[in-house]
């Protein structure tokens, strides 16, 4: 039984909704729809889009490989070490991405803490390369995945895992055959939201990876670039990114948009 909400809330609520509607309307009303398809299919846009999709997909893969074990550890650990790791993992979510980019430079740049060894030993320089784009995207996207999956693991009923273990299944078998399938919705949601965040990454990317067509100029950087020379083109790209984001949210509707 739901209690009645005070009517006083409706006015600020509608203003709040309007606050989000108007920017969308601004984009949609000023978009040059006649040239929309032509602009989208132009080589620089396709190049940026393809680069964005590849880098976001790789970032999502890295997120899965390293983020899933992190989430499992966070869901089972306790005490101050867990709190510390949790804060570390969550930090990129609240940090301005450009700060993340500077931090990445100082760590993985050519003169960075770790980057100088990469350069000395393997001749690997990450900034100004597509690998740098993937790294920057992973840095900002992984926290979303880890927190989503950790929440899934915490609400998972451990009696299923215990039952499987009592029937003789080893820890790896229990993890892959029982735990993972049961948290599949969280895994899927975490992957989609990480991919969306990776796709939209701008600040850390332009700071850490630079801005070069075909190499490191992803869609958000192309929007920024276009805004300075061709505002109409920037609007087209923005509308495309809004559509992609809306599609990803549609995929997530069960998980992130559901009413608990």
């Amino acid at each position: 039984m739901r209690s009645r909400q005070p009517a006083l809330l409706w006015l600020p609520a509608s203003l709040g909704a309007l606050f989000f509607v108007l920017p969308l309307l601004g984009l949609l009303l000023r978009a040059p729809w006649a040239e929309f398809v032509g602009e989208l299919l132009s080589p620089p846009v396709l190049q940026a889009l393809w680069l964005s999709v590849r880098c976001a997909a790789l970032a999502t893969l890295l997120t899965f490989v390293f983020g899933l074990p992190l989430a499992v550890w966070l869901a089972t650990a306790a005490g101050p070490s867990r709190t510390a790791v949790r804060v570390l993992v969550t930090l990129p979510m609240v940090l301005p991405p450009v700060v993340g980019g500077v931090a990445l430079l100082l760590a993985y740049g050519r003169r960075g803490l770790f980057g100088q060894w990469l350069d000395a030993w393997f001749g690997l320089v990450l900034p100004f390369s597509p690998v740098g784009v993937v790294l920057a995207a992973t840095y900002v996207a992984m926290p979303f995945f880890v927190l989503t999956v950790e929440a899934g693991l915490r609400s998972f009923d451990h009696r299923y895992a215990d039952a499987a273990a009592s029937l003789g299944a080893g820890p790896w078998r229990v993890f892959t055959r029982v735990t993972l399938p049961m948290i599949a919705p969280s895994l899927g949601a975490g992957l989609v939201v990480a991919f969306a965040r990776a796709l939209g990454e701008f600040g850390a990317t332009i700071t850490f990876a630079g801005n070069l067509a075909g190499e490191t100029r992803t869609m958000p950087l192309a929007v920024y670039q276009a805004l300075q020379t061709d505002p109409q083109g920037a609007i087209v790209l923005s509308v495309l990114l809004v559509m992609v984001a809306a599609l990803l949210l549609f995929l997530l509707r069960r998980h992130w948009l559901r009413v608990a």
Partner: protein
Amino acid sequence: MVVACSLVGCAPAAAAPHPIVVFAAASLTAPFQALAAAFEQAVPGSAVELHFAGTPSLLVQLREGAPADVFAAADENNMQRAAAADLLVGAAQVFASNHLAIVVTAGNPQRITGLEDLARDGLRVALCGPEVPAGSYARQALAKAGVEVRSLSDEPSVTALVAKVRLGELDAGIVYATDVTDVAEVAGVAVPEAFDVRARYPIAVAAAGLQRDGGARFVAFVLSPAGRAILRDFGFGAP
């Protein structure tokens, strides 16, 4: 909304007059900070608010109605675009000039002596984007010298480009001569006169501002002998 505005200062405060808002190219950061301080001293009760960014970014903000009183650009093309879009009051005037320099790590460990060295294999070089005045000048200079450089990135402003040389991520870039003085971690290598491009900085009163008279006074101050002296102190040439 009102509370939010007063917290972040988008509403004019009752006590202080609205400041004169100056949009200036990133390469003007140091001299304009000094110019603003000198102006505030010369005109009691005045306040100058400075915004620095790459010239094209400033133009975008002006186009979308940012309430600037003064626009100081790093090239005449962008200023002409502003004039064509009716964003200015009166005509723009050139107030300073600059020339190009190769920015390298302090001590010049890669022994870069001229533009042709920038094409060397294994050297990490970047330029500003072609839409940024410094990027367009750099490409003109390279074309004059017949040198082809593989730029690692189209950097959004000279300040961003110099920062990456300071951090050691880049070995070299092409910026203005004034960008490399007073920065400990970098040094400048002169571009030979034959290939150099003289950058001319125009300034104008912007139409969207709330302090049109104040804007005109600030422009006059920049053009005055006192203003020119400050610009000269920071290495800028006469218009």
